[in-house]
């Protein structure tokens, strides 16, 4: 026995230990070094007699230390390896789970339900109505008599022959807005009125990145004594900031709609550039994005439904849900909402 033999054995052991990873391999290492018969360390100890007598105590201690060290290291490694070994009946936790199939609601539905819930909390009734309308409810009662130039603003799809509408009266056109529903509601109910009317509407627009001949609109109407433009501003602030974020600013610009007077278009500060407009293609460098049209209900509309315009005032607004969805989610092509590509639909939350 010599110092060099002890060192060589330690080096061999450390190499063998590092390559043994399983319990079986570690037990093999134990046998190779520590077995009573033929173990390398046992053999080394047996050869102690061949060492010079004065070196025997020192070498004997070294050899015993080595044995002790090997035993400790192996015990630790074997215990660790046994702890890692899967118990009986264990499964591969990393394989994919079995999910029940779950479909997605359409993004326009998600947005519409969101809008409905915001207005519900503010005490608004949600109202649905027929998509086929008559001239009276779509135009005339809304201060758009025949040959009114404003009818050009909403290019209309007409039916080849009148059809009985869900509201009972003969319909001649596809509604260009959901306002007809509001007229029907006011014809049947006295103020106060506080409602939103979401639904599909139709205009004779060719398909392109920002237009579809059918789209979804939500309109709102509030009528009562002492309702003013200031109330419209307050309501839209709550609504649009909840939808787009508290940091957004709103701007009211005068505009024209035949059924409101005064009329205002509402812009929201651009989310892409934070309203600065700097090098922003989203808002065409203006810092603002047009989001909806609104105004104080025209007295002629009140007269058409039998409300006294001297006693009651009210406001109305209308917005396109597709356009809002484009802005909210950064969708680049409005047609995606009507192609129903599952790769698109599945991007939206359940």
């Amino acid at each position, binding site marked *: 026995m010599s110092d060099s033999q002890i060192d060589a054995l330690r080096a061999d052991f450390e190499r063998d230990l590092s390559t043994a990873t399983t319990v079986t391999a570690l037990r093999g290492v134990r046998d190779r070094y520590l077995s009573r018969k033929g173990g390398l360390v046992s053999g080394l100890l047996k050869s102690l007699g061949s060492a010079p007598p004065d070196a025997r105590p020192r070498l004997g201690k070294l050899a015993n230390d080595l044995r002790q060290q090997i035993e400790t290291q192996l015990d630790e490694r074997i215990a660790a390896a046994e702890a890692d070994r899967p118990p009986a009946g264990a499964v591969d936790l990393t*394989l994919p789970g079995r999910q029940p199939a779950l479909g997605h609601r*359409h993004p326009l539905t998600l947005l519409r339900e969101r809008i409905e819930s915001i207005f519900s909390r503010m005490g608004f009734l949600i109202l649905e109505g027929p998509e086929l309308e008559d001239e009276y409810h779509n135009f005339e009662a809304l201060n758009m008599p025949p040959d009114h130039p404003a009818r050009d603003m909403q290019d209309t799809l007409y039916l080849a022959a009148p059809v009985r509408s869900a509201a009972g009266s003969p319909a001649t056109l596809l509604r260009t807005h959901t306002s007809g529903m509001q007229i029907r509601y006011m014809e049947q109910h006295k103020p106060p009125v506080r409602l939103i009317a979401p639904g599909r509407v139709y205009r004779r627009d060719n398909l392109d990145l920002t237009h579809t001949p059918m789209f979804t609109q939500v309109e709102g109407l509030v009528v009562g004594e002492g309702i003013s*433009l200031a109330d419209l501003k307050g309501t839209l602030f709550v609504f649009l900031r909840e939808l787009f974020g508290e940091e957004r600013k709103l701007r009211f610009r005068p505009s*024209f709609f035949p059924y409101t007077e005064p009329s205002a278009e509402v812009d929201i500060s651009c989310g892409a550039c934070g309203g600065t407009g700097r090098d922003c293609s989203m808002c065409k460098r203006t810092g603002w994005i047009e989001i909806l049209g609104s105004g*104080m209900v025209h007295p002629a509309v009140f007269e058409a439904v039998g409300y006294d315009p001297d006693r009651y005032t009210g406001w109305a607004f209308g917005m396109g849900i597709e356009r809002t969805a484009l802005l909210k989610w950064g969708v680049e092509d409005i047609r995606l909402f009507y192609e129903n590509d599952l790769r698109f639909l599945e991007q939206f939350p359940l």
Partner: protein
Amino acid sequence: MRIVYNWLREIVPVPDDVDTVAREISLRGFELAAVEQGREPVIDFEITANRPDCLSHVGIAREASAIWGLAIKSGSVARDAGSDRIPDSGQRIPDSGQRIPADALDVVIEAPDLCPRYCAQVFHVTVAPSPSWLQQRLEAAGVRPINNIVDVTNYVMLEIGQPMHAFDLERLGQHRIVVRRARAKESMRTLDGIDRTLDPEMLVIADAERAVAVGGVMGGADSEISTATKTIALESAYFEPTSVRRTSKRLGLKTEASARFERGSDFELPPRGIARAAELFTQIGAGAPISPLIDRYPAPREKRQIQLRSARIARLLGQVVPPEDVPRFLKPLGFEVAPKNGHGEWTVTVPSFRVDVVREEDLIEEVGRHYGFDRLPVRFPPLDAAQPPPDPIIVRDRLIRQTLTAAGFSEAMTFAFIERQAALPFCERGVDPAAIQNPLSEKFAALRPSLLPGLIDSCAHNRRRGRKDIQLFEIGSRFTSRGEGCGVAFAWLGAATLAHWSGASRTADFFDAKGTVELLCRAFGVAAIDVAPSSAPYLVRGRAAEVISDGTLLGVFGQLVPAIGDARGLVAGEEVYVGEVDLEVLARVAAGDDLRAQSLPRYPSIVRDISIVVDETLPAASVRGTIRAAAPSTLVSISEFDRYQGKGVPEGRVSLSLRLTFRDPDRTLTDDEVQGAMDRIVEALRTEHRAEQR
């Protein structure tokens, strides 16, 4: 409306920053289409349909005047109607030296309802190109220069808003202008070279014999100014908006003139148009008047007067506007404002060019516009009543979405109009699809009688992009010539369950479609449904079913006829299962809101399985019926749990296994009782259906 910045500055001295001018004006209701910088800056505003007066530089100048408190520059452009100089009859014409008689032109209005005012004047002219400043200005405003005469008429229109037209006097028969309705089938060639057939609802400008212009829309080719023209009759008139609009629509002819007349022009403007043109003719040496101004205005109109109340302004805007501000906003816009009854009430006289201002609210908008909507306070409308319950339609649709998405279907939305050909198989016999009179294209010519054609197209869209497993549904309106209804439809192709490493997935089949319909019915608490074979032409026979509840047809489902799927781009050989349910019927047969909870059973139930071999054509419903009839009332449920054909079962026969559950609400059943019931059931199945027990 393209506003040439330097032209505007000639009328009102606006600030010298183009962007500021553009922004401030746009915030008063004139949306900005574009701002073009450069040597000749142009601000392009979108003018709303109610403001024809702003289809001119003077109109925009009035807005600027109100914004910056600037006076409109005095001079020809802004001169009052009263100061128009009308040349004397017999005036000496400098370049010709001729004396022209007062009757050089005769003007008669035969249709004063369509043309309440018509002004004209005869000019001696030298037709030539316009000077370059004039050409450049027209080009900046987006109008092509033609010759000095036409250019001046366009210039006046763009400057003050009065459309004008010049006729070659020598081409007017008997030097007469007759403003009348067109005769039936009367025709003329307009300036664009197109022959137009007119009708008596249209107004024409005619000479002694024939029409020479469509009133307010376009002049005629025959009386057009040419280089040979020496004398012109210059027209400046007021045409009724509705008539111009109808004529323009019917002829499919929109012009700068018709756009202004159909929105409503200024009935005081016609003589001023001629005066301004005369001035420009002199300035550029194009001509001089040789007749007096002829002004036919049989029934002059009064200006409107409207009472305006400060209290009403506050009620509508939600803010008190200082009374001293009101005249400050209105006067520069051309309104005359006279105080009435002391403080806070005014009598406002509306200028003739403001066709949009007819009631107090319209004036309040003017005040609000110039006060600034952004300065108005922000409030919340008080709640004075509890919110009514939501529309049942909304509750219904939400439940459908919840049920079908939980069953793996994603929601689709498709257009309500489809090809007529695609609609036909989905119409009931004898019912036509509702057609659109003015469709965008043949692809959108009919309203959908069913949601399925749209869903099938959406499936094909996905399939073409490599998606094999597709589950889609849509809730929406359906239409036929009988009216509008509402339905929900679904389409299913490919795997019935999500693919998983643990085993092969099954392909969706008829019973997946049936299960979907059953699930919908369950969601709505529909008590019982029956199915019967359907003859719907779009479903495969033998795999097509009607769903009936309470004697009413609730919907259909089954396998789509492969030819229909193939025609829309689906893959041949892949089975597609579809279904559609009428939502109005579903809502009617749905369980009401009066649920009573049942107490749980107190005594145990006894379960017995039975396997029988019957003819393969025997419906499971018949087996159930026989069992029910033979069993005592303690039989509480029957469920089929296996159906087998093959080894050990004779050809044409099928082995059916059923699980029967017996229970009595008031006591524990004995084995003997249940065995007795089972024996009677087996006996009944044998007699009724030649069933053999396995």
